[in-house]
Structures are given as C-alpha cells and as structure tokens.
C-alpha cells in the first residue's frame, strides 16, 4: 500500500546520520524531524538564518522575531546560532549542510528537478530552493509518485521550468525509494505490499529494478 505522508517522513528520517546538519522544506520534509531514529541527532537549519531550530513555542513563548523559513513561529535549541541571510546561504551554497529534503512537482532521469512554478497557473517563487539544490551535499526529494490525476512525476525529462540540473540523486515517494544515476531511476526499496510492476507502471522515466527489491521498513 502507498505510504502516508507520515510514513514517507519516517522513511526520510532513516537517511540521516548522527551529527548531520539538515535543511527541511515545507510539507512532508518538515514532518521528518518528528521521526529521527533513537541514537541519531540532527541539527535543523532554517534558511532565514537559524541553525538549531527547536520545537514550536508554547503560547507564552510566542515571539514575532523568532520564525522559521516557513514563517512559522519556532524556538531555538540550546547551542543554536542565529545569523543573517547571506551567512545562511553561505552555509548552504558552500556545501556545509549535509542533507536537504524538499518537495517537487517533477524529477527526471538526469537528476533535474522542477518545483517552483507552473506557467500560467502558479507562481510562488523559488525562495531558497534553487540555492539548496545547488549547494547541499545530499538532496532528498520527497513527493507522491504521481500527481492527483495519476500522472507520473518521475519523468524522462522535466517539462516545467527547472529548479536545478543534475542535482537530485535520491527520491522517496509514497511507493518507492529510488536512486538517480546513469540516466535512470534505480529502484532501491518499495512500499510494503507495492509490486515492482506497479512502480514501473507509475514511473514515466526509465526504471531499473533488480530481481529482488526489498520493502521499506517504516
């Protein structure tokens, strides 16, 4: 069965290594912070200028000057640092952030990603996404395998305006974990009970799958 948003977030959290600096995009990526495995510590970077983002505040802790990149009120952990936007993106662009997790409209077999614009329909702006995909060491894309009309979001070539080129190496969807290399999606894991055939059918870009593809542990 396809994973829930929470289950995708759980699987994402398994990627983190102890001592990782992690930037989480809005949506499913943000949920991953709730499922970091025991024994693993990560420090969250929020690109508006906060390293060591903590939990949401209680009512009496609310502070308009303390927000995250999603403009939500947050707190800081002990040992956090706060800095300006140029410094924040120096960290990101300079490759000091270990993991970036973000959503996407489309990803293709060459590791290209489109996530910020649907011409004529939706213009939200790229925010920090272009910097993040150009800078982070490991980028994980999380998304549903297909859009709500059933169209595959894993393509031979992205059709929408790109966020970055040749930058995506790992994708975690509601159906599968995939690696992107050599011009193909390589199936690493499948959602419990989901067949390789189903994943193949829902992947428009070239899919490479071994005979035995293990199930995700979520």
């Amino acid at each position, binding site marked *: 069965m396809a994973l829930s948003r929470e289950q995708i977030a759980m699987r994402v959290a398994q990627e983190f290594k102890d001592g990782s600096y992690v930037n989480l995009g809005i949506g499913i990526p943000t949920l991953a912070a709730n499922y970091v495995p025991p024994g693993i510590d990560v420090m969250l970077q929020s690109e508006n*200028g906060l390293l060591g983002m903590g939990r*949401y505040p*209680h009512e009496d802790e609310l502070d*308009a000057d303390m927000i995250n990149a999603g403009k939500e009120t947050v707190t800081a952990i002990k040992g956090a640092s706060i800095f*300006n936007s*140029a410094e924040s*993106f120096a960290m990101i662009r300079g490759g000091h952030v270990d993991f970036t997790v973000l959503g996407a409209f489309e990803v293709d077999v060459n590791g290209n990603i489109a996530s910020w614009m649907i011409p004529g329909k939706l213009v939200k702006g790229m925010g*920090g*996404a272009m910097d993040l995909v150009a800078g982070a060491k490991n980028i994980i894309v999380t998304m549903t395998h297909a859009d709500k009309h059933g169209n595959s979001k894993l393509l031979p070539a992205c059709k929408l305006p790109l966020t*970055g080129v040749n930058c995506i190496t790992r994708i975690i969807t509601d159906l599968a974990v995939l690696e992107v290399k050599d011009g193909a999606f390589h199936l690493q894991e499948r959602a419990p009970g989901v067949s390789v055939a189903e994943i193949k059918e829902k992947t428009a870009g070239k899919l490479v799958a071994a005979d035995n593809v293990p199930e995700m542990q979520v």
Partner: protein
Amino acid sequence: MSGFDKVVSDYAEAMHGLTDGMTVIAGGFGLCGIPEGLISQIKRMGTTGLTVVSNNCGVDGFGLGVLLEDRQIKKMISSYVGENALFEQQLLTGELDVELTPQGTLAEKMRAGGAGIPAFYTATGYGTPVGEGKDVKHFDGRPYILEPSITGDFAIVKAYKADRYGNCIYRHTAQNFNPMAATAGKITVVEVEEIVEPGELDPAHIHTPGIYVDRVIQGTFEKRIERKVTAKENR
C-alpha cells in the same frame, strides 16, 4: 562626536530625498524584521515607479504589501511571492514587473553591492530560467552563472537597537536580510525599537557597524505574526 549622530526625529526626515523611480532595498523576511514605519512613510509620501528589492512583498494589507495597493511599485526583485494575492495578481496581469531571484543569490547580491563587488559566480540557478542570458563559466568542471550585485538609492532596515552612531544589533531571526540591505543603500535608514548611547552595545557583537548607516529613527512596531504555530505537547 555630534557629526556622527545619525538620529532623526520624524519619518519625513527619515525618508527625505526619496523620489519617483528610485530603487529601495528593504530588509525583512515575510513580516519578520520589517521597517513598518518607514514603509508607512513611503505610502504616505505616495512615491511611485519604485523598484523594491526585498525577499518578499509583505502580505495583503501589511508590510510592503501596502505599497502595491496604490501601485507605487513598478518592479519587485524578490525570491518569493507566496500567499500575497495582490502581488501574484499584479504579477500575472503584467502590471508589476517581477524579477524572481533565488533567496541566497538575492542576499549575496545585496552583500556584494555594499562590498564593492560588482558581480560573482554562483551555481544557483544554472540551467533554470534564472540563468537564461547570463554569462556561464566553468570552475573545476562545474558550470556557474555570473550574477551582478545590487545597490539602492535607499535602504530601509529594521533593527532591534542602534546607538546614535548607527551601530545596530538585530533580535533573533528578525536579522535576516537587514544587515545586507544596510550596506547596499546610498542612503541607509534604520528604524529601531530602542536608541541607546554609544558605548552601550558591545563592539564585538555589533551586527551593522554605523559606517553603513545614515539615519536612525525610533519606531513603534505592531510585529504581526504571519503563521502562529504553537506546540501541541504539554510541557
């Protein structure tokens, strides 16, 4: 040291010299750390044809969003339109010229502008619409695009405290784009929560040295919260 006293007493004096068609660089991220009173003053002045450089354009009815209502802004240079309906509408109808710029590139363009660096190479945006028409150069086999810096006729900045010489500190994440904006204005105006005497701020922890600042004004702030989210768990 009266020659270094940057404090002005009213908003008219703070924004004196702003005229139609100028470029204004504004600090702030969403509604966090925005110079509320300086924005109101620009609305009051009715200056038009402005190019505004700011990560966001506020929200409908608050922050820089209020300058969209009277069509005072000709062009926005921003990374994020977000949920500002009027911004999105004026963008889609073509009424407003919008140069969408990646957030990190935008911050670096302001910093470079203030630091006398006319352009820098970055991988951000290569191969995307942002990179179109820009000079490409390879370093260590990887392609980068050349991004020009940004300076403004005015920079409007929100700080927490400033001393009379214009030395500023920011509070929490209200820092964001403010320090870069402060360096990049021909005239930099800082609106603060509290003005203190020189010597009260620790020299080693000043975020914006006074050399970048031309005018300081004491403001009052609503500090609206865009997305109030609270902890679900009990303590």
